[in-house]
């Protein structure tokens, strides 16, 4: 693997981007073949943060394995947990109380906003604008505070359990979320002033990292990255889970197929998430927050596949059960892994500076890729 690094026979420059590199936001290792500034080939080398979560889960019970998945795509921890909780509930045919489902959706959407918020700041930083990072964190901090108050942690909350939630909402939750909505609506226009409308930014993103609709489907590029190529793949719309079929929202599709389209999808998606939260926040039904479950959970023999929409794309949780208290085999189809595989296709022929824009708009979270 490392002999090939240097220059190849055609005199192209081979450089390593990562595992420690400011633009990879983690330990992603890309081997680039460059001709001058032009990229000829991108070759990802993964596994620097591989913990084999799938293998770990084989020895954890159905109550225990949910918390591990927060560490996968740590920016959409709630949504990962939601997928696992749904899988177990599907297997046990548990009815989740309405209240728990509504709260789950609100939490998921808050997580999605927080994740896009961080992506926006980090991507702007990749492009070279440092200020948006801090502005994005200001709003994200508010979400983290809401999470901390209700779930007890800021990033890896472990708030969902099979059958509902671990605890009821904090009394201040609704008030704080409403305050956040008002604040966020004010600040999202500032984002446009600072970054979206900026001519330098538009020029950096437009026509960069083209990924056609056919390729996006073929590479399995999902989430905002796929929707930027015009692929309708929002699991919340196509295969609604929890109460997503009862709320009004729009699936954002852009047809630009480039980095700017992927960027716009996320920016518009944040507004849709706010819309979903607005519909639900005043209509949280009263009742239990947790279904009655046995102390030891057992799934019947069979296979259970759950698809949810995380902030990065489609997360699949595939549980193969032999009827015991632990999964026999569990597979996480993580969105980042498939999204990354399209990077080579996108990057060929563009400039080195474009690579960071592409990586930024694919929104790569490395633990999500490596698992």
């Amino acid at each position, binding site marked *: *693997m490392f002999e090939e690094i240097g220059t190849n026979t055609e005199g192209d420059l081979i450089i390593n981007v990562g595992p420690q590199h400011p633009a990879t936001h983690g330990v992603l290792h890309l081997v680039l073949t460059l001709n001058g500034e032009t990229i000829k080939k991108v070759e*990802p*080398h*993964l*596994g620097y943060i*591989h913990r*084999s979560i*799938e*293998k770990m889960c084989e*020895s954890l019970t159905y109550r225990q394995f949910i918390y591990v998945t927060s560490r996968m795509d740590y920016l959409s921890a709630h949504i990962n947990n939601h997928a696992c909780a749904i899988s177990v509930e599907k297997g046990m045919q548990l009815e989740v109380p309405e209240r728990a489902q509504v709260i789950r959706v609100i939490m998921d959407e808050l997580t999605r906003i927080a994740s896009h918020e961080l992506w926006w700041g980090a991507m702007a930083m990749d492009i070279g604008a440092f200020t948006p990072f801090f502005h994005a964190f200001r709003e994200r901090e508010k979400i983290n505070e809401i999470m901390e108050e209700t779930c007890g942690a800021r990033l890896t909350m472990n708030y969902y359990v099979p059958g509902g939630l671990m605890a009821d909402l904090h009394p201040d939750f609704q008030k704080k979320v409403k305050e956040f909505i008002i604040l966020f609506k004010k600040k999202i226009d500032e984002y446009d002033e600072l970054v979206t409308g900026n001519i330098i930014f538009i020029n950096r993103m437009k026509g960069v990292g083209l990924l056609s609709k*056919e*390729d996006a*489907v*073929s*590479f*399995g590029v*999902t989430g905002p990255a796929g929707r930027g190529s015009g*692929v*309708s*793949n929002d699991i919340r719309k*196509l295969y609604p889970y929890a109460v997503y079929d009862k709320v009004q929202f729009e699936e954002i599709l852009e047809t630009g197929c480039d980095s700017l389209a992927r960027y716009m999808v996320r920016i518009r998606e944040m507004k849709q998430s706010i819309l979903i939260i607005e519909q639900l926040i005043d209509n949280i039904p009263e009742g239990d927050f947790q279904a009655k479950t046995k102390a030891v959970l057992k799934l019947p023999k*069979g*296979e*259970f*596949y759950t*698809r949810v929409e995380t902030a990065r794309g*489609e997360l*699949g949780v*595939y549980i*193969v059960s032999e009827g015991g208290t632990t999964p*026999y*085999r569990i*597979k996480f*189809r993580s969105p980042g*892994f*498939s999204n*990354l*595989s*399209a990077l080579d*296709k996108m990057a060929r022929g563009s400039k080195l500076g474009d690579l960071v824009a592409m990586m930024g708009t694919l929104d790569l979270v490395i633990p999500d890729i*490596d698992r």
Partner: protein
Amino acid sequence: MNNEELKTKITELLPSAIFDETGEWLNINVEPGDWLSFAGKLRNEESLFFDYLFCLTCIDWKTHLTMVYHLSSTKFRHNIVVKSTLDSNKPEIETVSHIWQTANFHEREVYEMFGVNFLNHPDLRLLILPDGWEGKNPMLKNFEDPINMIKL
């Protein structure tokens, strides 16, 4: 298409397919030898149009390995699961990375984790594991690593 229609259509394409409807989606068992031509038909047949391979994985059943392909169509929105049983002593199956490009990475992952050899794969190398792990397949049930694995 619903499951019944899918069944009749698929039986036309591959008479030897065995169906199993216990799960959420239609399960189809195929022989590893039939897989490549069957996959091409699934992708290209106009009324099926399975253009989106959303999950590719393998299950170690100790006695044998099972490849699992989850397929979906972005046009008709129907899903199927294709399974193929491999011999655990010499697991081999044809690659589908030229039909669904996402299979490239997923097959590399299965190759290193389960040791399944994908015939005609363009770039079958270790993706996640570091150098020197060829032949040791961590996701197999009989894998032992006294240093890195902590038993609770």
